[in-house]
């Protein structure tokens, strides 16, 4: 504290002021005290002189009075009278004694009743002689008393005298008291002055203190800031000092200091900075001295070994690692000596608990001043997460995320490994391609979520049914491949395939449903059929198709001839492409007859492919392939456009058709711009929306009910008619049906075929009709081919029918002709055709 500049300045200033004030005060006091004392003494002397004069005068007056009053008593020796007189005089203040003496100078009466002084010598003879001849009183002063002696005469006779002793002591005491009082007053004055001086000194000191601190502060504060800033700079804080704005030497010093800071900031990295950086590193940093002992380390390094920082220092670096890792690390460090290049390796750290952490260890030589040889700086990086990520990547690269089964890549790897093993062991490897029967339908009708759930369960079933070492992989969709190695014969593989098929027999519980599935398995055997993996997979695929063709839910061993079937499919696809390019597709129209009027009120547009060999193919022959080829949306749009164009043409020619029906595929219905596209087509052909009836299947409805309802509402809002095709053949949800804004239900042909002879079917159809009627929907029967079926339709109050009983699907030209024929007489009985 005392070494602080501000304090020192303040103390010096205060000391200076105090000394000055004390000196002034001392001089003032000395002078003042001397004056007071002189005044006091002079005053006392003056008073004393005055008092003496007064006492003398008073004594003379009293003596004069007594000298006359005592004449008779003395003459008559009247002691009583003398006593009373003397007693009265003696009672006066200041009178010490009064006596009456005779002519011999001896006391006759001393003023006391007992006369103790009687006979004493009051005055000597000389005094007596003087007194006799003197009218005035004799005045003496002795021992603080004033003696007044006066003669008493009667006439000229001298009777004696009186002697009055007046005490000056009282006066002297009073004077002394007065002097004391003067002195006390002086002392009091001095004290008051001293107190005032002290108070003023104190105030002055406080003011000077404040002033001193202010001045010293003005001087020292910038220096203190500079000192603090220098301390911070020493700790690595090179931010510029906030200047005080002074223009004096301190301002210059601040400028110079800031320039120094700038230079330091540009050129210096502080130890704290380095420590902060090193301490902030997530990676562990250790520096080994030439003896291999840890000399420096950061917090992260201690964390790797889960040890206290104190225990790490000076430990042998290699001892920090598990015993089985030390050799490799030692070799890496040793290599530093020869190559001087950083050495990296992946190893493990071991915590005291035994848990091991995978780390990347990077070592570099470092030359430290004072060390006789190079040290080593090592960086430890925790690669646990990297390892996990790598594993995850491997998992994603090699496994199917939905089922957890190996994917195609791993399958091929495993297959190669199995082939390699088989070659060495001269055993067979069976490759089984399994495709689920009907999965696509489930996926389309119940949605992908259900489909995915089902696939996951299928994967579990397949895996559980295999031997240990066998591999099940998912190639995509509902395609699975099984590798069964170490087989002795293909029969072993057949047994496994049968087991796979068998494992699927039990129902799959998905979303509170029980779903049933079968699988078709194609088998090929290495090395009997082929020796490369691609060929083996293709062969198994081909065999699987054969199994499907042969009725599904079965397995089929690959044979060479199966290749031919595959070739046919490829040819079909090529033909379809050519057909589209050549516009070999036509639209046929099957009339729909209104039972109440017996007239053709509408037609359904149906696609036909006139193949290069002039054979006319129905959609059932090519639609699946076309869908696999991804052509279905384009073809569907073509059908819509042509049908509307044709209908508009018919209309323009006077045909009385109420509407034209067009089938929409699932893919078409999922197109976002379906409604807009329909509007465009209608507008392009000048048609109102109510002339178009779009037919969708139940599977389309069930695929995504919410979206379907939305799309249907949009279509209905435009006025387009909607019919459900093939109603009753699928998984219709009646609750949805109630919500769906459809106009017509077309009951599926498969149900009609055995009506009315099959009572069960008839009952179902009747129920469907009743239900539709109750919901206010129009009902149309498809596939009406017989009179009985027609009668049934009429009997059930069906609105319209469609089928060979009346008209097959006809080219547009024939339809036009048909319409023209029937145009003059609408309502002609159907039987007339």
């Amino acid at each position, binding site marked *: 504290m005392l070494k602080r500049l501000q304090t020192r300045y303040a103390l010096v200033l205060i000391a200076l002021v105090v000394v000055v004030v004390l000196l002034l005060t001392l001089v003032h006091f000395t002078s003042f005290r001397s004056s007071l004392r002189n005044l006091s003494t002079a005053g006392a002397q003056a008073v004393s002189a005055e008092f003496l004069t007064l006492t003398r005068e008073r004594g003379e007056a009293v003596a004069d009075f007594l000298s006359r009053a005592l004449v008779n008593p003395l003459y008559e020796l*009247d*002691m*009583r009278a003398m*006593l009373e007189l003397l007693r009265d005089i003696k009672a006066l203040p200041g009178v010490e004694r009064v006596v009456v003496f005779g002519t011999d100078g001896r006391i006759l009466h001393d003023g006391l*009743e*007992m*006369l*103790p002084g009687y*006979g004493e010598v009051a005055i000597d003879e000389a005094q007596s002689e003087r007194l006799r001849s003197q009218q005035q009183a004799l005045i003496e002063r002795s021992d603080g008393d004033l003696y007044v002696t006066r003669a008493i005469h009667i006439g000229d006779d001298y009777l004696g005298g009186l002697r009055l002793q007046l005490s000056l002591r009282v006066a002297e005491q009073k004077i002394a008291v007065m002097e004391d009082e003067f002195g006390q007053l002086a002392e009091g004055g001095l004290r008051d002055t001293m107190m005032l001086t002290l108070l003023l000194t104190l105030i002055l000191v406080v003011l000077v203190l404040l002033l001193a601190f202010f001045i010293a502060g003005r001087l020292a504060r910038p220096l203190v800031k500079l000192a603090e800033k220098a301390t911070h700079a020493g700790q690595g804080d090179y931010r510029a000092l906030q200047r005080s704005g002074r223009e004096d030497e301190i301002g210059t010093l601040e400028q110079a200091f800031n320039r120094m800071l700038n230079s330091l900031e540009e050129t210096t990295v502080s130890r704290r900075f380095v420590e902060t950086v090193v301490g902030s590193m997530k990676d562990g940093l250790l520096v080994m001295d030439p003896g291999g002992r840890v000399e420096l380390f950061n917090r992260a390094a201690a964390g790797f070994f889960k040890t206290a920082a104190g225990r790490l220092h000076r430990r042998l670096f290699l001892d920090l690692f598990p015993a089985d890792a030390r050799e490799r690390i030692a070799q890496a460090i040793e290599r530093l000596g020869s190559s001087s290049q950083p050495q990296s390796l992946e190893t493990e750290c071991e915590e005291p608990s035994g848990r091991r952490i995978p780390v990347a260890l990077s070592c570099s030589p470092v030359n430290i001043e004072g060390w006789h040889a190079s040290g080593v700086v090592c960086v430890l990086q925790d690669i646990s997460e990297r390892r996990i990520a790598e594993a995850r990547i491997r998992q994603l690269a090699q496994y199917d995320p939905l089922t957890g089964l190996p994917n195609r890549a791993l399958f091929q790897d495993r297959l190669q490994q199995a082939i390699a093993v088989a070659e060495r062991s001269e055993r067979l490897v069976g490759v089984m391609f399994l495709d689920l029967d009907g999965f696509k339908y489930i996926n389309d009708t119940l949605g992908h979520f259900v489909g995915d759930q089902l696939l996951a369960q299928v994967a579990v079933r397949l895996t559980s049914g295999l031997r240990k070492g066998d591999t099940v992989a998912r190639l995509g969709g509902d395609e699975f491949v099984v590798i069964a190695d170490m087989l002795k014969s293909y029969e072993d593989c057949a047994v496994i395939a049968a087991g796979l098929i068998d494992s699927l027999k039990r129902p799959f519980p998905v979303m509170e449903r029980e779903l049933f599935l079968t699988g078709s398995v194609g088998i090929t055997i290495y090395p009997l059929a082929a020796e490369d993996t691609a060929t083996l997979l293709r062969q198994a695929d081909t065999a699987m198709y054969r199994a499907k063709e042969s009725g599904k839910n079965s397995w089929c061993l690959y044979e060479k001839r199966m290749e031919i079937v595959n070739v046919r499919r490829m040819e079909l696809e090529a033909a379809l492409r050519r057909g589209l390019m050549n516009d070999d597709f036509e639209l046929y129209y099957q009339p729909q007859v209104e039972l109440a009027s017996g007239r053709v009120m509408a037609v359904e547009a149906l696609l036909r492919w006139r193949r290069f060999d002039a054979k006319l193919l129905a959609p059932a022959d090519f639609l699946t392939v076309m869908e696999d080829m991804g052509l279905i949306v384009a073809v569907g749009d073509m059908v819509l456009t042509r049908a509307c164009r044709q209908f508009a043409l018919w209309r323009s020619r006077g045909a009385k058709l109420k509407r034209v029906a067009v089938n929409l595929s699932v893919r078409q219905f999922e197109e976002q711009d379906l409604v807009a596209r329909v509007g465009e087509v209608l507008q392009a052909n000048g048609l109102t929306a109510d002339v178009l009836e779009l037919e969708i299947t139940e599977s389309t409805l069930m695929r995504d009910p919410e979206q379907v309802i939305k799309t249907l509402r949009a279509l209905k809002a435009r006025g387009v008619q909607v019919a459900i095709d093939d109603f009753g053949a699928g998984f219709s949800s009646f609750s949805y049906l109630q919500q769906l804004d459809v106009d017509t239900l077309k009951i599926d042909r498969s149900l009609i075929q055995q009506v009315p002879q099959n009572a069960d079917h008839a009952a179902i159809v009747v129920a469907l009709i009743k239900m539709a009627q109750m919901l206010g929907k129009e009902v149309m029967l498809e596939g009406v081919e017989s009179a009985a079926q027609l009668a049934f339709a009429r009997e059930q109050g069906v609105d319209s029918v469609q089928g060979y009983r009346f008209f097959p699907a006809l080219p547009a030209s024939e339809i036009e002709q048909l319409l023209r024929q029937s145009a003059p007489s609408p309502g002609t009985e159907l039987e007339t055709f």
Partner: protein
Amino acid sequence: MFSLALLLSLPSLLCASQQDPTTLVIGKVSQNPKKHYRYLKPIAEYVAERMRDLGVRRAKVLMAPDNRRMIEYLRQGRVDWVTETVMSASIFAEEAGAEILLRKWKKGVPRYRTIFFARNDSGIRSLADLPGRTLALEDDGSTSSYYLPLSILIGEGYDVAPLGSPRAQQQSRIDYLLAGDEINISTRVYQGLEDAGAFNNLDWRKPDHLPELFRKEMRVIHQSQEYPRAVELVRGGLEAAVRERLRSLLLRAHEDPDAEMPLHSYQRTLRFDALRPEELESIRALYQTVELVQGSAR
């Protein structure tokens, strides 16, 4: 008529004083009325307050400069109650018809006597040595230092005369000088201005009357018989009820705390008591010498 006569006679019957029947007047012969007034007033008020049932409403002090005047007052009924020494009492009794009521223990003393004294070196041993010598007495009002010494000397057959008397100087005559005060007596005797002195035995022991210095040089040459120190008298015509009430009040006064201060003021009286008959007789006998004493002064 009888009632009216009774009413008219009541004041004379009930009044304590002729001047003012409701006022009890105490009197004393004094050359210093100022001093003695303070002595007398408290005791007079004490008594008067206790005579309200007798019609007394207030007390009054009346002092006479000499016996003659007091005798007049007593005769005139202006004074009801007088305190005096025995000589004056005998005079008032005889000449004014006053009644000596009680003995007063003046200054705490019930009785005293007169003593004659002279310097040791005077050669005077008894009264018989006095003729041809001078005798210092106080004043002609003093009992113990005038009447009694002179009556004793006269009774013993000595010729006494005031100093400087025109009568022819005789060797057998004893000249007396009235010194005016006891201390003057003692001083004059001590200084040899007079040969002997006389005052009461109480003065002999008082250093202010006889300083030790003097007494050492003195001897008593004669002592008289004892007399009451002082007495209380009432005028002859004082109503009996008043007189008796006064007697009874004074006799019990020393027992009454309320009387303490008045008694002290009343010449430091300790108490009052009744006089024995022989004391009364001795007082009355004194009157026989009065004429002789007064005659000696002429």
